[in-house]
């Protein structure tokens, strides 16, 4: 209770505030009606020059001045309806978010002040729960167990030290999990061996050229869970990991709170005491909370960025790692063998009536931000994730002749359709879902895509906005539909994009989007994966990229961009990962 009294009595209520209350009460209706959306000054806002929004890694190293303690306030946007076990949950997004907070993977990307991870050459993977690791030969990876790693002190694990058995059980559960089949198709695991109590050896069936990225990034990295997860505890309701945050409280629909792990393996870390993730589903509420200082961090939509910056001038803005999704529109299997789009020219035509530049700029509010000196560094996807190692930029023609299949060119599309034998256009069904599961932008994205198809004049579109359940089972799982499913946001990519390619186009993948048989493509995919010479592999990957552009089995759109985050200046040392963040002593409500 003392904290409450300190806060209340410490705050001063000025006469101005009281007068304002009275005025607001009587003039509320008129005031609201007169409110206008403010337009930014076109010549640029004062104080925001180009290049002025730094990356997190450009902030200084403040570890030396760290003041331990305090509760940092984040938030989460949805109810967590699934269980907590990332390997068996039915609610992937929320559980994966939670798992990333409480568990740790074997490897991690090296980050810190001065390390520009936006450049691929700077991305180095170092051991996290593995002390060392190396590719001994193209089919063998050796991991060394890190000593002195302790689990959270929760029964039945009770804070014991991590050992190799935990790794073994985790991999076992992973392989039995319905949600991680990608690991099997990617790495084609032959077996895992444990020659001694500190070493794990993973043997693959084939050489794996993308090598270094495996186990380090989202697709194939996995979280180490205690061996008790197999029998003595229920990982759906209990979260016991090794990360510096330990789940303290979970109140359904209310909050997630983590507390400091006392025996974290990184000495002296973390500095913070608590992590608060209240579940706030209403956007207006979240904005209000950030403006009021109840959240320390906020990631605005591009539309909100300038307005909130004006509302909260004391908050810092920083740029984060390039993000985004790869929205792909894919065809249904039901009549693929006989439909007009079995002909690649029809697929190319569909791609060419989509104005990707306008779409991307619209969704990222590009013009307004650019007018205020904020450049998001938009990069457009080809069939490869934009910015990945082998990606070629079709906007500059780097993709070669096949760049034109991404360009917005209705006349050319019409010629293609005529050449394919459809001078009067094509009838096509489009599919997307109307639930909130993929976010509000997904629905807008699908609607705009659908409108673009329709307005081109070349297609007679029958739209099918359906419920999420029907979409999940009919469209996504069984592919039992005729036509085009729009802008599915594909995420979880590695730098190499080999895993993504495999998942999308190889017949052994559970998520196959190709639909039509293509042995040539599969041969190319298999070959590049085993090609150890970097030069030759690069050539192969470029070839595949051009081939995919011509084939257009799926229609990619949008791309990657820099995302901007707000953070209050009370939070320091953000160049490092969160275990080294600390709060200044004058943070309001520091201890929660």
């Amino acid at each position, binding site marked *: 209770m003392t904290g409450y009294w300190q806060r209340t009595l410490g705050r001063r209520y000025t006469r101005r505030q009281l007068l304002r209350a009275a005025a607001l009460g009587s003039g509320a209706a008129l005031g609201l009606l007169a409110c206008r959306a403010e337009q930014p000054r076109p010549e640029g806002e004062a104080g925001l020059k180009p290049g002025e929004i730094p990356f997190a890694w450009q902030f200084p190293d403040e570890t030396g001045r760290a003041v331990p303690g305090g509760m940092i306030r984040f938030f989460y946007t949805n109810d967590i309806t699934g269980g907590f076990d990332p390997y068996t949950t039915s609610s992937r997004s929320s559980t994966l978010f939670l798992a990333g907070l409480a568990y740790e993977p074997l490897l991690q990307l090296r980050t810190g002040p001065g390390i520009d991870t936006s450049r691929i050459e700077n991305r180095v993977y170092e051991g996290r729960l593995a002390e060392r690791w190396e590719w001994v030969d193209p089919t063998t990876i050796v991991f060394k167990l890190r000593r002195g790693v302790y689990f959270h002190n929760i029964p039945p694990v009770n804070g014991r030290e991590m050992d190799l058995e935990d790794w073994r059980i985790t991999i076992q559960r992973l392989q039995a999990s319905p949600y991680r*089949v990608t690991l099997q198709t990617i790495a084609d695991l032959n077996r895992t061996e444990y020659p001694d109590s500190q070493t794990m050896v993973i043997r693959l069936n084939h050489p794996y050229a993308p090598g270094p990225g495996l186990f380090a990034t989202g697709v194939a990295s996995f979280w180490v869970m205690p061996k008790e997860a197999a029998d003595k505890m229920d990982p759906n309701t209990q979260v016991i990991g090794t990360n510096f945050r330990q789940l303290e409280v979970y109140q359904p629909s209310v909050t997630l709170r983590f507390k400091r792990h006392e025996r974290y393996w990184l000495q002296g870390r973390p500095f913070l005491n608590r992590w608060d993730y209240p579940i706030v589903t209403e956007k207006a509420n979240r904005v209000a909370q950030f403006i*009021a200082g109840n959240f320390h961090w906020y990631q605005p939509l591009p539309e909100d960025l300038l307005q909130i910056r004006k509302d909260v001038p004391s908050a810092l803005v920083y740029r984060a790692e390039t993000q985004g999704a790869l929205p792909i529109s894919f065809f249904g299997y039901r009549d693929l063998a006989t439909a007009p789009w079995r002909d690649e020219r029809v697929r190319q035509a569909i791609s060419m009536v989509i104005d990707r530049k306008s779409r991307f700029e619209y969704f990222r509010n590009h013009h307004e931000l650019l007018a205020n000196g904020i450049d998001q560094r938009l990069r457009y996807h080809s069939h490869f994730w934009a910015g990945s190692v082998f990606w070629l930029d079709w906007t500059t023609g780097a993709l070669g002749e096949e760049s034109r299949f991404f360009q917005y060119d209705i006349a050319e599309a019409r010629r293609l359709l005529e050449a394919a034998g459809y001078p009067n256009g094509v009838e096509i069904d489009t599919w997307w879902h109307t639930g909130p599961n993929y976010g509000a932008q997904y629905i807008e994205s699908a609607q705009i895509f659908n409108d673009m198809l329709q307005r081109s004049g070349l297609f007679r579109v029958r739209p099918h906005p359906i419920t999420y359940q029907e979409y999940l089972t009919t469209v996504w799982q069984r592919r039992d539909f005729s036509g085009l499913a729009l802008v599915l946001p594909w995420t979880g990519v590695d730098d190499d994009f080999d895993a993504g390619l495999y998942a999308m186009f190889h017949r052994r993948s559970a998520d196959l989007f190709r639909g039509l048989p293509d042995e040539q493509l599969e041969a190319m995919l298999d070959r590049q994966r085993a090609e150890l010479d970097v030069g030759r592999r690069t050539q192969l990957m470029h070839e595949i990229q051009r081939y995919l552009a011509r084939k257009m089995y799926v229609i990619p759109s949008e791309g990657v961009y820099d995302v901007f985050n707000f953070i209050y200046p009370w939070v320091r040392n953000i160049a490092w990962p969160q275990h080294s963040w600390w709060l200044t002593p004058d943070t309001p409500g520091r201890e929660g």
Partner: protein
Amino acid sequence: MTDYFLRRLLLLALTLLGGSAVLFFAMRTLPPRDAIDLQVPPQTPNAEETKQALRRQLGLDGPLYRQYLDWLKGFFTGDWGKSLHSRRPIVQELKNRIPVSFELSLIGFFFTWALSFPLGVLCALRQDRLPDYVLRSLAYAMDALPAILIGILLLTYLAINFGWAPPTTFAYFWDDPVRHLKIMILPTVVIAVTSAGNLVRFTRTFLLEVLRQDYIRTARAKGLSEQVVLVRHALRNVALPFITVLGAAIPGLLTSSVIIENLFNLPGMGRYTFQALINLDYPVFITTTMFYAVVILTSQLVTDLTYAWADPRVSYARGTP
């Protein structure tokens, strides 16, 4: 009287039983797919076996009537099952959420009574004159405003102008009363505004009707002051039907709380129920619906009984429809 009470109780039990059966079979047979289909992708190796195993584990295999009987047995013994989605026991969730929804309904109830009734009386007394017009317009205007609009505007402009937002993490009244009150201020305001106009119309109409009755004329003829006529004779006769109608407003209060819960981050039953709908989580949905049903039917019974007890004219002897 007791006779009537027992009959109604029996009827209530039978209705609930029948309703639960209808609900159960409807939820299991109508959706073209079930929750397990949503949870296990067909690309999973051994998808069918996984689904079957999952079904067996969660008690979803076997003939439907047997599942219903098992569920019924569980209902009476206190084992209300687990959510299909989160695998968490439902009872636990309900224990946490019922107080919240109850509190919201209570607030709605209170404001409906505290605002509608006096407003309605005033309007009836000044029928077709300026106060009547103004008050009724105000009440209806407030009632017509969507709760969500009021909520988001309040949140936004309070934050911008005062830098204040309600605490994000919910606390029960007995855990942290001050924090709880701070959380409940805004929901209370929104509920008050949107429920003020609910029963103004009814109160006004009924009072007008009552004021035309012979016994009111007699009372005035006797020389009683208008005040006494109003309180002793008119209002008492309005109060009874008002209670009935208030009871009938309870279902509306229950469901309108869902929007408030989503808006202000309150862990209530409404949110739980609608999440269950999205996930086809039928045990949760049926349990919460049965809960609502019990509340509604009980409140109907209570209002009927109150009416019977309070109104000497009403007798619930056999044969009344």
